[in-house]
């Protein structure tokens, strides 16, 4: 199976304000993709100007559109973390979708069936913890299969997505089904267990700022803790990290659990904060998370920005779809996919340039402390 490529290695180190360059690159990639897609739509006969204005109004034109976009960004941010944290550690977790669903169904089960009488102060934290735990354990399943049975994580996480999908359908058809319906659908979660809304009359629940706090927490974890450094080192070069005494496998297990926990948390927040009940088709945030992670260059703060952008994109394109312009369904997905491809190309290109610069001795300043270190080791 493919060894993890160091495409995330493409960060220029040792210079201040790198992040501005990185941000500019990401913005340029997004602008390029949007221009491309709008051109395509213009060819099919849509007016790009009308689409852009309607999109901007729908996504950011006022308090209510803005809060909707942020609410949409919340699950994208958490599934983006699920992908980004694990990719950074060299584990290709494509299974955020399954972890998301498992987390959501756990929260639904707890609040509607298993703990219906508990006070909200008990039920909500318990649902959040249990949902995140379920997502984390679902992700760990893939790690365990790799560790003991040599099943590639890429494949097992994808297959586990489908297992999770049919599992929640079975649950929604069986023990969690709402009374009086034939459809696979859970009952409405009691209103006292909903996440509180911070801005009146909007859907802006407190899970949204909490998700951003989680992102800041993982930024801290990555940059200021030993474990964060060790996971990154294990992702860059597992053999070297092992030689340096880092328990690479244990760190991969840890990061897989944390990543799955993030995806599970996304499911919990989505169901307790937005939908308040669950159907068999509960959103594809898990797959979009990969795009978010790559656009954010696997940096939790970048992932937060990328999630906001995709939140604006999703909500805006939905409004254009509903409007008289009748934008075809799926355009937002095309944009996301093209963004991934552009960011991949950009990352690979920068990695190559970076290697070129560091491998030429005369290009490095003499007696520089960075010259002896492996590329990308600075943080």
């Amino acid at each position, binding site marked *: 199976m493919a060894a993890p490529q160091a495409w995330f290695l493409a960060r220029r180190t040792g210079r201040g304000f790198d992040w501005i360059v990185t941000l500019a690159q990401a913005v340029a990639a997004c602008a390029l993709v949007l221009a491309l897609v709008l051109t395509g739509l213009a060819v099919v006969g849509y007016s790009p100007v009308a689409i852009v204005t309607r999109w901007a109004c729908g996504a950011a034109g006022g308090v209510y559109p803005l809060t909707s976009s942020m609410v949409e960004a919340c699950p994208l941010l958490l599934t983006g973390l699920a992908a980004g944290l694990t990719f950074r550690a060299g584990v290709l977790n494509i299974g955020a979708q399954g972890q998301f669903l498992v987390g959501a169904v756990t929260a639904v089960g707890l609040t509607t069936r298993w703990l219906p009488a508990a006070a909200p102060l008990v039920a909500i934290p318990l649902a959040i913890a249990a949902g995140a735990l379920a997502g984390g354990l679902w992700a760990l399943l893939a790690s365990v299969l790799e560790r003991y049975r040599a099943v590639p994580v890429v494949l097992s996480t994808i297959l586990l997505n*489908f297992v999770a999908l049919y599992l929640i359908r079975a649950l929604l058809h069986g023990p969690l089904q709402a009374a009086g319906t034939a459809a696979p659908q859970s009952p409405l979660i009691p209103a006292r267990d909903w996440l509180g809304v911070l801005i009146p009359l909007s859907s802006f629940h407190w899970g949204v700022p909490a998700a951003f706090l989680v992102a800041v927490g993982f930024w801290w974890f990555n940059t200021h803790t030993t474990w964060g450094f060790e996971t990154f080192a294990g992702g860059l070069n597992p053999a070297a990290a092992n030689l340096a005494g880092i328990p690479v496998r244990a760190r991969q297990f840890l990061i897989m659990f944390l990543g799955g926990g993030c995806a599970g948390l996304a499911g919990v927040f989505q169901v307790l904060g937005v939908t308040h009940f669950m159907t068999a088709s509960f959103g594809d945030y898990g797959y979009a998370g990969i795009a978010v992670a790559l656009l954010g260059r696997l940096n939790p703060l970048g992932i937060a920005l990328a999630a906001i952008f995709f939140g604006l994109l999703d909500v805006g394109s939905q409004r254009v779809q509903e409007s008289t312009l009748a934008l*075809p369904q799926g355009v937002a997905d095309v944009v996301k996919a093209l963004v991934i491809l552009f960011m991949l190309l950009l990352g690979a290109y920068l990695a190559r340039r970076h290697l070129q610069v560091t491998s030429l001795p005369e290009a490095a300043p003499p007696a520089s402390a960075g010259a002896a270190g492996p590329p990308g080791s600075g943080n």
Partner: protein
Amino acid sequence: MSLGHESLAEFLCWQTLSAATPLMLAGIGELVGELTGVIDIGIEGLMLIGCIVAYTAAAATGQAWMGLGAAAAAGMASAALFAGVVLWGRADQIVAGAALNLLALGLSATLWSLYQNHCANLGLSTHLPRGAGYDLVAVPGLSHLPFIGPVLFDQYTLFYATLLLAVGIWWVLRFTRLGLMIRALGESPETCVACGIPVRLGRFLAALFAGGCAGAAGAFLSIMRTKAFAFDMTGGQGFMVLALVIFGRWAIGPLVLGCLFFGALNSLQQILQTTRYTLADPWMHALRSVPFEFFQMLPYVAALAALALLSRRHPGPRALGQPWPQEVA
């Protein structure tokens, strides 16, 4: 029960072969691609693009072969995009494949709504016109054999083509210089360079072949088997193909056997889902209490179990998933 099959067993066997056809076709393509060192987890997306393109092209022209050809061409075009990004852009193959899946999901939804709008504007039905879908082809003479006839010789054209392709590719890989080149590209690209074989061009052509096969497999789903299109109609079959290539340890015989096994599981699942309420067998009665979602889950769990039990660290082609050239000057 359809198509005048005489017994449940006969229908089950027919259905198995029919369900295995797209898996085999896409699997053969993916196998050749992986042998040259390109792993394309976007095979699911390529199949989905094949589905929608085949459906719209066949419906628009009224010609079934146009649908099939367009699907294969669209599969190849998408694979060319993937291969370009991966081979010349040196992007990570797994993540680029995931992007391809998302792209296909979005593109197929976009195309489908454009097509629906178009039909609504002209007051047309979105159903596939008669003659635009493939019908079963009974092999003259052989299709009247007892049991074997209706099972093996009353299938869609692409079933026979896939069998021929499997034998052909097996022969190419086993006995020809081209087969040696294909395997060398994945095992030892350095040797290929020494022999004057262009590594990236070879891999590009193999990826195109994989894309064409996956597109045609998608066409099988939309204009042969179901004669309809739905958003998630591939339903993870492309991912199953990836598992099957590993499961078959990059050899064509085990791959085909694996496809047949999963075809059988899939058709068993469908039959259990549809007939468990009508059949009076006592063991069917017991199955009624099992939620049918568990039958739908069965192929995926079986794929995981098969990988867990059988993939004893067979590494696969040595350069699988690696960019070329390895060091960048």
